């Protein structure tokens, strides 16, 4: 299936530093945001060029991939001695477009809520397009240049973009960086925080870190009172009806790459720990219960 872009045998030893696509086969994008983002690459459908690009990406031939606001730089190694230098430029939206997007996102709490909890709101594709922010770029909204001299998106740039799509699959917010603004900057515009507030927060943090507490010389204060300690409240204790709610509330771990789903892996630990904690609270070594 490699066709004419297959590599000569003697060069099969691939550079150790190469980036290897996580996916051995199948699509580079599993999530909708990555699939949509890379749709401009799919326009040509299956083609020998596409296959060659995939081979480069999966063969560890993309040596580096650096994402900067608005731009991506990559090095791709093919049969040529020196790696190809690739630069991909994304078109930057105007200030007005950003303002329009901010206003549109503010109109529905769901956008801010999702972005803040590390999720890509699905409606954002339409909203950003309407505002003129090419979060999901069209083919003519990016310009790729490569020292191979081929016009448009050459096979090297294509390979780099495939790996970029894979990254976006794990980190959707990268698509914001590509159009020139990090999601953090966007959220700041969305939620706005004044300098005064920042100063106040800093002061509060400083106050919280109390430096030292000298021991009192008064013997009554020093030794404390047994009765007072015994009466200290510890609050209600019960096993929560929903296991691992605290972790669940934080959502899935960003760009998880474990064998098991993150929250699924944690849930039994939370569940078992609950019983162990209850016994510690009751002051028992272990639960001798077990029905008679």
């Amino acid at each position: 299936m490699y066709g004419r872009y297959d590599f000569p045998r003697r060069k099969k030893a691939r550079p150790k530093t190469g980036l290897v696509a996580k996916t051995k086969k199948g699509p580079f994008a599993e999530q909708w945001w990555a699939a949509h983002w890379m749709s401009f690459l799919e326009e040509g459908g299956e083609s020998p060029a596409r296959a060659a690009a995939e081979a480069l990406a999966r063969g560890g031939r993309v040596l580096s991939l650096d994402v900067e606001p608005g731009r991506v730089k990559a090095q791709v190694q093919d049969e040529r001695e020196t790696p190809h230098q690739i630069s991909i430029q994304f078109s930057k939206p105007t200030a007005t477009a950003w303002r329009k997007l901010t206003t549109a996102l503010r109109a529905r709490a769901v956008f801010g809520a999702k972005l803040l909890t590390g999720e890509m709101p699905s409606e954002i594709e339409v909203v950003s397009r309407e505002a003129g922010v090419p979060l999901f770029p069209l083919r003519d909204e990016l310009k790729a240049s490569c020292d191979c001299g081929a016009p448009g998106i050459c096979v090297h740039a294509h390979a780099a973009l495939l790996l970029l799509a894979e990254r976006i699959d794990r980190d959707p917010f990268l698509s914001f960086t590509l159009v020139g603004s990090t999601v953090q900057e966007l959220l700041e515009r969305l939620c706005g925080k004044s300098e005064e507030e920042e100063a106040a927060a800093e002061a509060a943090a400083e106050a919280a870190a109390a430096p030292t507490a000298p021991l009192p010389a008064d013997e009554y204060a020093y030794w404390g009172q047994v009765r007072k300690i015994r009466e200290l409240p510890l609050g209600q204790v019960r096993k929560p009806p929903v296991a691992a709610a605290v972790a669940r509330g934080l959502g899935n771990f960003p760009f998880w790459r474990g064998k098991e789903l993150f929250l699924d892996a944690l849930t039994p630990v939370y569940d078992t720990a609950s019983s162990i904690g209850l016994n510690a609270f009751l002051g028992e070594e272990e639960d001798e219960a077990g029905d008679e």
Partner: protein
Amino acid sequence: MATILHAGLYSGRLHVWAETPPPPRERGAGASALRPAAAATALGDDDGPPFSPFTAPYPALARCLEALAPGCKPGERRLRRLSLWTATRAGMPIPSSPVIAAIDEEGETRIAPWTVLALDLSIEESMELLYAGNDPRPQARGVGLGADFLFWSKALRFSGALVARQHFLPSLVHRDSSWIALWEPLLRGDDRRLFQELARSMPPAARALASREAEEAPETPPHVALELFLAEMVDHLVRLAALVVPPGGSPRRGGRSARTPKPKAEEPTIHDRWLSALAAPLGHMDGSEAAQLEELAERVKVWREPASVFETSPFRLGFRLEEPEIAEGLELSDEAFAMAPWHLRYVLQSTADSSLIVPLDTAWRDLDRRGVVGSGSLGPRAFLLSALGHAAGLCEAVAQSLDEAEPCGSPIDAAGAHQFLTQAAPALEEAGYAVFLPAWWTAEGTRTHLSVRARVEGPSTEGGGKLTLADVVKFEWRVALGEQEITLAELHALARLKAPLVRVRGQWVEVNAEELRAAAEVWSKDAEGKTTLRDLLQMALGSNRLQKGLRVAGVDARGEVGLFLERLRGPEACELVETPQGFQGELRPYQLRGLSWLHFLREWGLGACLADDMGLGKTIQTLALVLRAKENGEQRPWLLVCPTSVVENWNHEARRFTPQIQVLVHHGVDRRRGPSFREGVLRYDMVVTSYALLHRDIDFLREVKWAGVVLDEAQNIKNPDTKQAKSARLLKTESRIALTGTPVENNVGDLWSIMEFLNPGFLGTWSEFKRNYYVPIQTGAGASALERLKRLTGPFVLRRLKTDKAILAELPDKNEMKVYCTLTQEQAALYTAVLAEAEERIAKAEGMRRRGEILATLGKLKQVCNHPAHYLGDGSELSTRSGKLTRLREMLEEVLELGERALVFTQFARMGTLIQQHLQDAFGNEVLFLHGGVPQGARDRIVRRFQDEVDGPSIFVLSLKAGGTGLNLTRANHVFHFDRWWNPSVENQATDRAFRIGQTRDVQVHKFVCAGTLEERIDTMIEGKKELAENIVGSGEGWITELGDQELKEIFSLRLEAVGE
């Protein structure tokens, strides 16, 4: 010897050390001379801070640990010498309690270092030892616990609570140049508040340990020390769980097991390795690339960010479910309320002041005003949005509302409301949101439920005759909503609504299809029922078992059964019985009510627990019951089991109040056994024995059919696994009574064992009981479980307090009682020896010498009665050797448990010292002692401390001479006369220290008398001629010297059967 255990954190680990009084010969010497000899030799000498004179050497420390936690044996290798920076005055450290040493009040106080011997504990050892702090009465084990120790014990329980609530998160930290995966506690909302309160209450002594090289006192702030401890404990507890159920599957197999040759086994990612490390004992993540670890740590931080924002935010997001307003007069058939809109309102709640609640619409408007919500790195809007965003993942209604720009709430329907109540609300609460639910909603659903009630009509028994618990009763099931029965039409209407929450007759009720089906079934065909009266009784009291697939809301009965259930409600509803004819003396009205209640339960074969306050006369109510049974023709004997120390008291009280009752004291080495006991016992009305013998002689005790079994001081069987508890359950009888002066209802665990004796099976098995009542109640989550338990046991427990208004009116202001104590074998032997020697000498002597001999003998015998160590004067061990001292301690335990205060008078200063010493060791608390040798200034101070100090000592020992007159000690409402002066006016004067103007409570006076000894006989003589007493004995004991040899012999002689084990 008094020992007080302390605990402190040193380099992140718990270290324990103990305080103990310095050896007597070194008392008063300079501090350097006080260095414990053992420590100095074992560890050599050096230049560090001087040894604290109070630090316990290793053997004493190890004994403490052994007593509290037998499994905690760190061994001497882990003994460390550390500096304790402690309050110091006049060149001496100030002990934590005067029990350790007298505290010098003169001079300036400062913090100075003293070397103590501390054991470095592993985390497992720390846990086991700290659990001992849960025991409310550790003194029983001979070790006092310092407030600092109890603090860490409390902190351990708090860690347990955090883990039980699942308030922790996985983490990755860089520490000591290595990466460690660990579990961190998450403090927010209420936990944060509890944490701060704990930290504020930390006794400084809990953070006062330092290295001996340190030149300055440790100044770790309490919240830092507490945070450290919690982090350690939470990580440990969760790791225990992770070891059981490793996240991400079991740890990777090593290279050896090549049996599963997966050629392309996927390399574990950094994430997999993190999960494995979280389940590994130490959590180290070495061997991974530093860059990867840093990136992972950053990701963990990002993931946890919202949690820390919520953790520190001054406000938290909350959800309030608001029920629809339903117009009055809507009938069940109306479908209006099925459709009526509910509303979920969003609010912000202040974490500092939980009563401060702001609706979110206001909050959005005020966002730009500084400091309303502001927190986190992105400001208030981001805080609100992300809080809503996280909540949206837990609650569909919230998710739907996020289409608005500034959501303030969400309308939901009845099904949505039900879903919110049952699923979303608990999840949100767990995730740290505030949730406000309608008052009719409880952890177990709506207060009112579709249920059944049993209706019993008219005559119940099939055969006629007297109704018993075993009789089968016929009844009819009625479908009801709580108290009210509902009609078939209403039931149909309910079914038609198909809503999980409906409003019927003004209350919201949760219904499900299954219950509706079950209810319809009951209506249509299955309404007849029959069961034993015993089961019916359980249903009436609400045992919460399902019947016909529905909860049983109660029993409505008429006729005999109705009357029975009605009377069970308490002594007020019982039919009053009369005082038995032969009863010597008078029963007070409340005692008569108690007797009637005991009688009523006995008639029905139900066990009763009489838990009246000390001094209200549990003994005479019981004796009256026994006498009443005898007068009504009871032939079989009763069995009374009590602690050895009160065996004689029962014997005595029986002779005094119910002389017709033939009492057999089953005690002593020459007691009857086996067949001889079985035959002999039938001649008696009551057998009195001790718990120790109950177990030892159970083989033949269980063969007797008893008229009734009474357990006095029934807390002796509070542990169901002890020999005495098991033996008690083997006894054959239809009538069981437990007597106790301690509030049983306060300790749910004890209650089961006592109830299991009284009414076997009534509370279910121990594990059922534990699941249904004990755990929910202990964890504070079981308000309804406690309520249910009280309802279930209420009819069988009668507890009246001296302070109850009705009782107060019936009690005299001053209530005098004799307390008859049992001599121990050792006391009896000494008594006989003293007597044998004296008799000869008295017979030989004449005149003044004879008088002298008599008085000397009198004194010696009184000393023997007090305590062998008092007579021998050898400073030997005190516990378990004197019947009187044991009884005193038992009674004072009750006094302390009630939070009351007592005076203890003795005429011997030396005995006073022994009493003080013994009580301090037993209770681990300071006991005051005033005797003739105390100088005026100190005397005033002691009195002031007892009378005025808020948390002052509760027990005050006084010598009759030094404290018998003049003082005002009205804070005490118990007066004990440990030994007797035989002069009522002197004793009354002493009693009047407490019983005088300013006394607001009734005063209980307990006069101790050793049964079978001269004390008992002299007491009887004085009582016999009370009117002459003043004249004859006005001068104390002098009159005894005038008695003839024969009379003397009678007075002095020892009645052997009164001697205990």
